[in-house]
């Protein structure tokens, strides 16, 4: 009896959580143009989606920005972790706090402040400004995922490599880097996901005529909802879902620990 109640309860929770997305997914396969009735199963909207040049260009932008920004962030974030690891405990705690702020900050505030910054420095809005913003908000995610790895490192392994004749650079790449790699990878995946589904910050830092998928959907939906948008949203949801599963499957379930620590 109690077990049955538990099962019903959890089913209800998932129903409320996923019903909206479920509806969207179902509608993306609906042959009828109206939302009101089911006109049979079709891939038509997906096909049309991939024939729409605007959307394909937006997709290209999204992937390019997500990839470049997360790789750059992974690079900068890892270097930042190495530096922070060498700091005294007090300075390190302060630095960690400072890097965490952008994650907790409201996206709209980050978006508007980045926009103002770009204006005051006379930047031309476009792909470049979106990329810079994405790198900015991605770095903390990388740090958050690499830092715990860094702390787990046995400091003696680096010294052991030096002791065996390796130069500091060789020692880092042969011994420290492989140990950090799982953290860097999961940080990269997390940053990639964050960049992929960002709307607000992109909205404020993109120029006219440049769109990512999320801003494209927003513009399209304002003009009137077309079933292609259901298909597009479904694809984005599925991609993010797959990425999140990847992050969680990466060695030792890093991301879970990271969120617990904060």
């Amino acid at each position, binding site marked *: 009896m109690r077990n049955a109640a538990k099962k019903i309860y959890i089913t209800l929770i998932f129903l409320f959580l996923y019903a909206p997305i479920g509806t969207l997914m179902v509608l993306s396969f609906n042959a009828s143009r109206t939302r009101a009735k089911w006109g049979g199963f079709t891939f038509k909207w997906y096909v049309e989606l991939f024939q729409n040049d605007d959307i394909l260009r937006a997709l290209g932008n999204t992937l390019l920005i997500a990839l470049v920004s997360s790789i750059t962030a992974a690079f900068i974030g890892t270097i930042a972790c190495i530096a922070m690891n060498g700091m005294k405990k007090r300075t390190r705690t302060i630095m960690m706090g400072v890097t965490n702020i952008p994650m907790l900050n409201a996206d709209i505030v980050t978006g508007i402040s980045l926009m103002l910054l770009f204006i005051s420095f006379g930047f031309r809005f476009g792909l470049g400004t979106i990329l810079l913003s994405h790198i900015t908000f991605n770095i903390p995610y990388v740090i958050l995922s690499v830092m715990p790895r860094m702390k787990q490192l046995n400091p*003696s392994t680096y*010294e052991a490599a030096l002791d065996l004749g390796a130069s500091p650079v060789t020692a880092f790449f*042969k011994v420290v880097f*492989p140990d950090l790699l799982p953290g860097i990878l999961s940080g990269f995946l997390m940053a990639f996901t964050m960049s992929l589904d960002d709307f607000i910050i992109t909205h404020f830092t993109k120029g006219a005529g440049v769109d990512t998928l999320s801003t494209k959907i927003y513009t399209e939906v304002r003009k009137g909802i077309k079933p292609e948008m259901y298909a597009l949203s479904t694809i984005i949801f599925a991609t993010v879902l797959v990425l999140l599963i990847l992050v969680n499957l990466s060695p030792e379930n890093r991301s879970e620990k990271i969120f617990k620590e904060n």
Partner: protein
Amino acid sequence: MSKELIHLNNISKSFDGQMVLDELNLTIHENEFVTLLGPSGCGKTTTLRILGGFATPDTGSVIFDGQDITKLPPNLRPLNTVFQKYALFTHMNIAENIAFGLKIRKKSKDYIADKIRYALKLVNLEGYENRMPDSLSGGQQQRIAIARAIVNEPKVLLLDEPLGALDLKLRQEMQYELIRMKNELGITFVYVTHDQEEALTMSDTIVVMNQGYIQQIGSPESIYNEPENAFVADFIGDSNIISATMIEDKLVNILGTRFTCVDTGFGHNKPVDVVIRPEDVELTAPKEGILQGVVSHLIFKGVHYEMEVMAGGFEWLVHSTALHPVGQEVGIRIDPYNIQIMNKPESEDEEAVAIDI
């Protein structure tokens, strides 16, 4: 004694304003097993790190084979370290771990393969080439750490409490292994530990350290039998340390009773500390002893009984294979050779620190 290999010259080192080593001077000879022994915080690990190149002394110099290597980075020093927590490279298998130093020195494949085989044989782990470090026990990992260090043919092997994480039985086994390896390799071992038994078992020379100072340097026998001060006496094994007065040469007043001893040169009526090892206190029938007392505690320790005897207002620690039950009246007798006279500490730094191991 063989030729001098390492000389530490007036080494001082402080961390955050706290003095860890104060003008330390130490000479290590070729093919010697030297143990730096002391409680945690005595500066023994810092000394080893200065030797390995992981710490730079504030003042003083490190001379190796006649050359000043004070500023030489660790990767260019002709010595190798076995770290406390093994520090194996977990993403490499055993063979790759051992080959690490050789590959950096660009040795040939055949040479490396030979060396791996030789090293694994030396540490009794033949056939472990393809295992991963995680799949090995603590003792085995420690052996691999040693193998990885010695394939580089260092002139000196530095070992930082290498047996600290092992259980008692394995630790004792490894002590014999280390002595065997040292003899087979014919190189100098500098060993850091806080375990006095380890130090006594393996060393040619023990350097007892406390609070950044060397308290005594000597063979295990001389350190145990003739401690120079109360700290050394207390740190190396159990002992009775009693305040006494040296009446004249070969005569000392302990707890109001005159004992003959063999020490001379302390002067007349001079306050001294006396060390008597618990196994050197002989219990006799009350009338036969120089001091009379009553057994107050008794514990069976396996090899012997450990007793505490209240005599002359002092609680004597006594080890004996003969059983004297609690409450029994006994006499105490001490062979003059077993009374070790020490000067009272002159400075705070030399003062005995109570340490439980």
